[in-house]
């Protein structure tokens, strides 16, 4: 650092930096800085016009892989739309939409093996469903039936975390346990840009680095934490620059570029699996809709700002690119649309019937065996209900 009196770090250096010094005179291998600092611009492999952008370090996934992922992208978008509709219809209490972030959602699900673990947040419903969890079980939370509806062990997918950044530590613990047993499980832990400010983010990255465990941290930087824009959250050159402070590599990616997301995340996962340790990936994306249905974004951002992101939509560019490759035609598109419609129908039908709710369950899972206190309280409630019923 050069501490120069009077200059203002915060304002002078925003988010767009060029990478320092690749042209060293003697080759001594990469320095820690070169190894751990992110590239100067977010990695992009397919630009918003659907054109391939060459990148030395990140290969473009092949067409079939992209087509399969594109299918999931379209289904993901449909899930967001359907969930929003169900909220409007009063079938669901709340839905934090990932509209616009579906490339991150899909990539997060598909880069993992079956025995890997995913740690999602409330906004990552699409990732969880893409990973294979029953959509209706996922929506248990959002329609208010129970705090979580699926078995985390079945799909190696943790519950969708609400207290920000806390889940990142659980991810480290899961990875650490697997490592101690010699299993080669990789853990992918998701959080938002806002969550990077929490102490638990710091502790999780540091623990992961010190214990050298296979966790990939994916920050979906969608530029907002409810109403708070990124610039009030951090004045670092980028969120990926935080990685070096823990001694792990950081990278930034165009989060609306499915191909880049697959390539960068995939490489980080491979590296973690091969004993390379944790990594931090920052995906640049945008929250196209309100924080949740209860939010009023007009209070803190203009519609025109939002519209700037429409041309960068993850679906459009992938459709163009795949079309140019002749991998998409009307049949394929119809097939994909049908699959998406199928998922939407599952959601709609599922949410149209209320599941049985058993008040006795309230006492059932607090402890493995009910305490005498809970037995008394369960009896009190049962008695009330039987009298009501009578």
């Amino acid at each position, binding site marked *: 650092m050069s501490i120069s009196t009077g200059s203002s770090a915060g304002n002078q250096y925003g988010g767009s930096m060029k990478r320092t010094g690749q042209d060293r005179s003697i080759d001594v291998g990469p320095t820690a800085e070169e190894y751990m600092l992110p590239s100067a611009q977010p990695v992009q492999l397919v630009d918003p016009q659907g054109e391939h952008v060459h990148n030395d370090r990140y290969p473009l996934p092949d067409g079939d892989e992209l087509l399969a992922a594109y299918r999931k992208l379209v289904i993901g978008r449909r899930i967001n739309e359907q969930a929003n509709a169900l909220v409007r219809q009063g079938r669901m*209490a*709340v839905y*934090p939409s990932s509209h616009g972030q579906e490339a991150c959602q899909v990539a997060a699900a598909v880069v993992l093996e079956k025995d890997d673990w995913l740690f999602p947040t*409330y906004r990552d419903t699409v990732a969880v469903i893409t990973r294979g969890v029953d959509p209706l079980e996922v929506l248990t*939370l*959002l*329609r*208010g*039936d*129970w*705090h979580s509806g699926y078995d985390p062990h079945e799909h190696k997918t943790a519950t969708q975390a*609400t*207290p*920000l950044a806390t889940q990142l530590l659980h991810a480290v613990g899961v990875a650490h346990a697997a490592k101690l047993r010699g299993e080669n499980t990789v853990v992918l832990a998701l959080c938002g840009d*806002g*969550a990077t*400010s*929490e*102490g*638990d983010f710091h502790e999780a990255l540091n623990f992961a680095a010190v214990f050298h465990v296979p966790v990939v941290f994916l920050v979906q930087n969608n530029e907002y*934490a*409810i*109403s*708070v824009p990124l610039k*009030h*959250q*951090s004045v670092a050159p980028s969120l990926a620059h935080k990685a070096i402070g823990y001694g792990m590599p950081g990278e930034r990616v165009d989060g609306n570029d499915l191909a880049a997301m697959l390539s960068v995340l995939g490489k980080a996962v491979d590296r973690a699996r091969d004993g390379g340790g944790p990594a931090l990936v920052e995906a640049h994306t945008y929250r196209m809709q309100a*924080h*949740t249905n*209860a*939010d*009023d974004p007009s*209070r*803190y951002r203009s519609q025109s700002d939002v519209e700037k992101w429409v041309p960068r939509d993850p679906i459009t560019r992938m459709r163009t690119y795949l079309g140019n490759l002749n991998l998409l035609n009307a049949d394929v598109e119809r097939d994909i649309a049908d699959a998406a419609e199928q998922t939407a129908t599952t959601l709609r039908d599922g949410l149209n019937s209320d599941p049985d*709710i058993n*008040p006795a*369950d*309230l*006492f059932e899972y*607090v402890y493995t065996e009910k*305490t005498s*206190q*809970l037995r008394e*309280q369960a009896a009190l*409630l049962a008695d*009330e209900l039987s009298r009501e019923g009578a």
Partner: protein
Amino acid sequence: MTETAVRSDAAETAAPPAGPQPLTFAKALNTALADAMEADPSVIMFGEDVGPLGGVFRITDGLTARFGEERCFDTPLAESGIMGMAVGMAMNGMRPVVEMQFDAFAYPAFEQVVSHVAKMPNRTRGRVKLPLVIRIPYAGGIGGVEHHCDSSESYYAHTPGLTVLAPATVRDAYLMLRAAIRFPDPVVFLEPKKLYWSKETLDLAELRKEADDDAATGSAVGLAVVARSGTDATLIAYGPSVPTALAAAEAAASEGRSLEVIDVRSIVPFDDETVSASVRKTGRAVVIAEAPGFASVASEIVARVQERCFHSLAAPVRRVTGFDIPYPSPKLEHYFLPSVDRILDTVDELQWEDA
């Protein structure tokens, strides 16, 4: 995961017309903040989304526009950070009011609250005062998802050095928040979320005058009130449970039983005098609170009442509280919350055969 019950009526910022008018609990708090900031330039407000958005419940609506972003501003998303920064600002001449977005999101700040907010004045023999207010939208009954409905008052009430207030009426929302901001010591100010949209018809000018009078007498902290007079038994409640207790008393009256309702208002300090006087008079008491009962404020009230009124008691002091389980999901919360029926059932068990 998110705000759950925002109504736009709290968002009105225009100067209210004169004379009595309907005022929501939320708007009363908003007005109290604005009046306090107007009265004292050292009052500043910060937290998550309290700036342009006005808070997820709109309690800080319009404050940034009116007082500038130096006096009402958003912070990075870190509750320990918010609380720790508030400690430093209070050390250095400010009167910070911070908002914890929801009850369970105050837990990351727990070390700052317990180890510093509560202890700094005592640690320094009163040389460092911490005149700060921690506003916490708290408790349930709004269909919120997990982590948005905790009744966390017992954690704070058990921590010496904190003053813990819980208004239950629109009037008190205004007066008690003004008093809390003026108070020389740190205050945990618990705002029952489910009352945010409750309304009373009040004359703001008179409320303001009352707040000024209280500023002179300093009487607002530490006093319970008799919210409804009665003779047969005492219901002791605070915050979100007060309306439920009042409804139960109303129902009991129609069955010929006269219940007195005490609104505790100030959990710490606790007004033993008012509570004991009532119980000595009625001889029976039920304590009502949403939080799980075990080792809670409700336990404390039961303990104090039996310690102080033992010979006046015709029956054990009973509790109607949340069960000792995590706060339930929206579709199950009504089984959990103290209800009029559960209160009346409990009153029925107060050994009336003796009476």
